[in-house]
């Protein structure tokens, strides 16, 4: 995920082409020229980037399907709002904060970087030649920016589902700006920007079980705690009142879209496609990512049948997503069998974590915390199973550091927002639905009430 840690990967790509004379171009069937490597690496970022972009659609559909029909317009508004704000925040602040390229505001590459550089992202000029490229030996800056931006936006998407059906629009969007401009890029720089978790701790988090998914999960958990559960969700006698989603077909479509997008998320995180080895690795990652999702879905399918005597589709959808999150920290080294099992454990986690959160009276409308936070922690630890370079403390300590940072900062931001402007709609607005009370617009105006 960062230019620096890529060097071992991309380095191999750069050494091999030197056997080929530059003027003669590549020898067919042997190696690619530097131009070709640059082009293919950039292409991987671009294709990966638009696949990850499409995950925004997946989150929107999943959340639109799992909220009640009276809150669908609001949920869609939050989804397109948060994505757009994330795009601007990452451009203005986030990108250079995450990738300071050695220019740390606090720390250094050698001693460990803690706070990156401040300044907006700047692309390469129009129509550059190879000698004007920022990193000719690797990939275009524009493709890298585009790809990384989508990951940042994904983090924000995770938060919106957990807090649905009761949070006010504007405080939520303000939190999104802080998350995507500061919280996400700062912690991501610690690993992917070459900061202290990378250089000092040997932390391994391939595409971000911790760096993206747990970060979104921690921010969502902090928000859910400050916001409180939906009215009527938890009865005084401790019973849980289910609030079934409005459209399980949309929720299923959303899950499949996320599953598709994940090929870009994990596959693109190989960060290079200029050699036979890289392309073979990207292929392994695609296959492992897919089978982990299947493992998670099947685990939830079987487990809900056994526990509840009937399959719960919403849990199966969450199970597939948990499988995807679980394999995200290490989608390359596992065999297909190991990847399936790693994903299946994610599915099991979800089936137990959803009722557990209800028992704690933490109301997470779409299961974002079990899927992204709990399975994210599991996935980060699961690196130990198949990657010999991983160490227990190298994984565990960064999980705790990132978790504490994101949870505490998010908690403070939510508390401040609550104090300044209030983060929750009033009781009448919540019961009538946010669509009419906050936006004056229904998602399904031709449906009768009832």
């Amino acid at each position, binding site marked *: 995920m960062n230019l620096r840690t890529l060097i071992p990967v991309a380095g191999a790509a750069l050494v091999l082409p030197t056997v080929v004379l530059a003027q003669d171009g590549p020898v067919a069937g042997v190696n690619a020229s530097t131009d070709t490597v640059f082009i293919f690496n950039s292409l991987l970022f671009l294709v990966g980037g638009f696949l990850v972009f499409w995950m925004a659609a997946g989150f929107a559909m999943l959340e639109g399907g799992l909220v009640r029909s009276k809150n669908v317009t609001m949920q869609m508004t939050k989804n397109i709002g948060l994505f757009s704000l994330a795009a601007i925040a990452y451009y203005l602040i986030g990108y250079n904060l995450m990738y300071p390229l050695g220019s740390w505001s606090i720390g250094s590459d050698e001693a460990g970087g803690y706070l990156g550089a401040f300044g907006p992202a700047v692309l390469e000029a129009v129509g550059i030649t190879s000698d004007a490229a920022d990193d000719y030996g690797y990939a275009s800056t524009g493709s890298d920016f585009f790809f990384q931006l989508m990951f940042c936006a994904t983090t924000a998407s995770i938060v919106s589902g957990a807090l649905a059906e009761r949070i006010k629009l504007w405080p939520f969007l303000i939190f999104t700006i802080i998350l995507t401009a500061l919280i996400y890029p700062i912690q991501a720089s610690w690993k992917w920007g070459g900061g202290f978790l990378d250089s000092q701790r040997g932390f391994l988090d391939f595409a971000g079980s911790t760096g993206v998914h747990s970060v979104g999960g921690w921010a969502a958990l902090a928000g859910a705690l400050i916001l409180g559960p939906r009215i009527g969700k938890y009865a005084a006698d401790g*019973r*849980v*009142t*289910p609030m*079934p989603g409005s459209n399980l077909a949309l929720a299923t479509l959303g899950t499949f879209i996320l599953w598709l997008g994940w090929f870009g998320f994990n596959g693109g995180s190989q960060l290079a496609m200029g050699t036979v080895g890289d392309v073979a690795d990207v292929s392994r990652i695609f296959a492992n990512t897919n089978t982990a999702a299947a493992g998670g879905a099947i685990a939830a399918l079987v487990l809900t049948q056994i*526990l*509840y005597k*009937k399959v*719960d589709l*919403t*849990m199966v959808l969450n199970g597939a997503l948990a499988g995807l999150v679980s394999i995200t920290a290490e989608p390359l080294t596992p065999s297909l069998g190991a990847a399936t099992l790693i994903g299946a454990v994610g599915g099991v986690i979800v*089936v137990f974590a*959803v*009722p557990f959160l*209800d028992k704690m009276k933490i109301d997470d409308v779409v*299961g974002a915390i079990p899927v992204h936070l709990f399975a994210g922690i599991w996935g980060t630890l699961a690196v130990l199973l198949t990657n010999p370079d991983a160490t227990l403390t190298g994984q565990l300590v960064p999980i705790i550091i990132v978790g504490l940072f994101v949870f505490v900062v998010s908690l403070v931001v939510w508390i401040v927002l609550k104090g300044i402007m209030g983060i929750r709609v009033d009781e009448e607005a919540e019961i009538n639905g946010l669509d009419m009370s906050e936006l004056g617009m229904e998602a399904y105006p031709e449906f009768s009430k009832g």
Partner: protein
Amino acid sequence: MKLIIAAIKPFKLEEVREALTSVGVRGMMVTEIKGFGSQSGHTEIYRGAEYAVNFVPKVKLEIVVADGMAEQVVETIATTAKTDKIGDGKIFVLDVESALRVRTGETNDDAI
């Protein structure tokens, strides 16, 4: 004239309609309803939380027939909708004061 109100299991609707048509019933009103009787609901699980379904889906038939036909209609519905399982439904018979066909102005037995 009699008004026959029957609450039956939804999957029996088509069978009951056919049986009633074959004994000469020429019209009926059908509504999808929810309610409870001695079946009194059941429990389901959503995302690990058990909840009570207090109202069970049923279909309500409303049929107006001449006095002489009422018994046969009740009998037909009862035998056709019967599954011997709890929740088969109930049938009520009420007197009807008058009837009028809007298009022709015919009244009472001529109107049904």
